[in-house]
């Protein structure tokens, strides 16, 4: 892997983290003194993806805006890695008229046709629409592919199994990605899943399955390269499971009392910075300037969101029908 690619992966992860740190800050800023999930400039559930950036950065490095992503209730890292306009993303999270869904969607329901991005708040149910996007690409004679993301908890849903079978049967250009962050909210993987690797489940449907054990962005990048190339070449779907890490709660406000692994978590971003530094790809100065640049872009987006108008209540029924 060349230095430019490695640097690109790092920058993508840093941008995503910066964005979520700003959301975290503003999300909690006005929910005090009595914490109220529905209060503040950013109301509602907030599922942040920090720790899982390697999965998105490694996958999306192989995609263009002609490729599609169906993401989960925890979608920001994939949205950002796939090139979503940060202003439109932030404005939707702040519930503004200028947001991607004009404030009708929220952070679990981001739709950006310009980069073929969508996500769903229902576990595993982003897989079936991914089949249709892939089907359309195939029938339209495009070489575009779809990356369909779920967590490891979703691999026990019917939608997951139906989708793997149908994608394999119709040789659809889909890369199924499982972010195994060890936790389905509070239920550990050992208590939910009868096998250690979901790559086995891919094999059982006649498609390639890979498990990456170490949350390595370069490991994801390697596996993604093969899977995306195969899908583009008409060789059908693949599955990549990445053992990643959920650094924060399932949602903000989750006290995580059920969790005993909090002291042993490895943050992949400083870890990758160290690796790149020791390989001579990154300097301390560059780490600072990359972080600075990301923060500037993020704060611009947050400012745009905050200064945008709220949707008009008189237009609440607009967009029910086309």
């Amino acid at each position, binding site marked *: 892997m060349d230095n430019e690619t490695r640097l690109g992966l790092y920058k993508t992860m840093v941008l995503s983290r910066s964005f979520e740190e700003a959301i975290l800050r503003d999300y909690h800023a006005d929910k005090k003194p009595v914490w109220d999930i529905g209060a503040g400039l950013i109301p509602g559930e907030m599922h942040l993806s920090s720790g899982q950036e390697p999965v998105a950065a490694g996958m999306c490095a192989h995609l263009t805006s002609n490729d*599609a992503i*169906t993401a989960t209730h925890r979608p920001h890292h994939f949205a950002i890695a796939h090139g979503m306009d940060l202003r439109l993303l932030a404005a939707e999270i702040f519930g503004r008229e200028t*947001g*991607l*869904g*004009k*404030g*009708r*969607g*929220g952070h679990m*329901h981001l*739709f*950006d*046709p310009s980069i*073929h991005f*969508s996500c*769903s*708040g*229902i576990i595993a*149910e982003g*897989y*079936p*629409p*991914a*089949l*249709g*996007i*892939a*089907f*359309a*690409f195939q*029938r*339209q004679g495009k070489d575009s592919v779809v990356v369909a993301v779920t967590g490891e908890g979703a691999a026990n849903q*019917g*939608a997951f199994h*139906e*989708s793997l*079978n*149908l994608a394999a*049967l119709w040789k659809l250009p889909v890369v199924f990605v499982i972010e195994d962050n060890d936790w389905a909210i509070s239920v550990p993987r050992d208590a939910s899943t009868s096998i250690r690797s979901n790559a086995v489940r891919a094999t059982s449907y006649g498609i390639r399955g890979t498990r990456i054990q170490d949350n390595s962005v370069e490991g994801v990048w390697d596996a993604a390269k093969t899977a995306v190339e195969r899908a583009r070449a008409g060789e059908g779907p693949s599955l990549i499971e990445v053992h990643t890490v959920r650094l924060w709660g399932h949602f903000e406000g989750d006290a995580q009392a059920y969790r005993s692994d909090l002291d042993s978590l490895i943050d992949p971003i400083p870890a990758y910075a160290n690796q790149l530094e020791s390989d001579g790809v990154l300097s301390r100065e560059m780490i600072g300037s990359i972080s600075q640049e990301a923060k500037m872009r993020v704060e611009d987006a947050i400012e745009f969101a905050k200064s945008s108008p709220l949707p008009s209540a008189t237009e609440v029924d*607009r*967009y*029910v*029908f*086309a």
Partner: protein
Amino acid sequence: MVITGAPSESVTARKLTTAKAMVEAISQEMDRDPSIFVMGEDIGAYGGIFSSTSGLLEKFGPQRIMDTPISETAFMGLATGAAVEGMRPIVELMFVDFFGVCMDQIYNHMAKIHYESGGNVKVPVVLMTAVGGGYSDGAQHSQCLWGVFAHLPGMKVVVPSNPYDAKGLMISAIRDDNPVIYMFHKGVMGLPWMAKNPRSLGPVPEKPYEVPIGRAAVVRTGRDLTIVTLSLSVHHALDAADELASQGIDCEVIDLRSLVPLDREAVLESVAKTGRLLVVDEDYQSFGLTGEIAAVVAEKDPRLLKAPVSRLAMPDIPIPYSRTLEYAVLPTAERIAAAARLVMA
């Protein structure tokens, strides 16, 4: 009052069954628009269990007419995804009763994406599905359930009762940029292997035409009593109206044809004239269509009514298997006539 619905036979002499009218609509639209495809269970070589796709595989081939695995969640979602990317899928759910295994894809995805996206993403899917009982298929294969779909915002719901509307509503549904659920009663399809109403064979123009979604049809005019209904019950209501006419009761029969959008004006206009309302529904009674139609009048002006609203719907019990039991709950012509006489009493 404008009388809409099937043209007189002088306009078109050709007759088709409802099933054949549906297939002709799909076929003509597929000729026009290559982005249309059809998928579902047994819709290829079999031609649809209720003949909704007969002959399409032979004409369009397996690239556009696709049998799916028994994976309703996967292929409902596939329809949504394909529609989002510019195709126009027609997807069949073999029996509406099967909605339970794929409702998340229908309701949380197909129906909501346009709204959640602030109008940026359109989902032009036609979801066609067989409904209704009367042939002892039991509690899991005989329901209508249109009330469920009409209750949930984001999908249009159309329910043709005759061959002419079946073709026109299918064409409108395919051309609509929203998800449309198209619910056809097995008893109006004109199937050779099931008891059928004579009106399941009717005049259908050969050229493509649209029946507008959201417009009810006055299928019989009358002075004394308005019967609002849809689907197979339209035929039972017309049969009942014939009988009642000989007893001096002049019924007006309204075929709603669409539940979403609902033609409230057509109901109000008729009730303003007759002053009496009987709502007939093969779907369950509570929290359903009959209550909704009653509310349309009650909210507008209850003084339109000379007698209390009457409802005849499936009682709130699972649909029984035994013929004796099933026909004890279906809204038959006899039961409609009896209910009408009570309203007039």
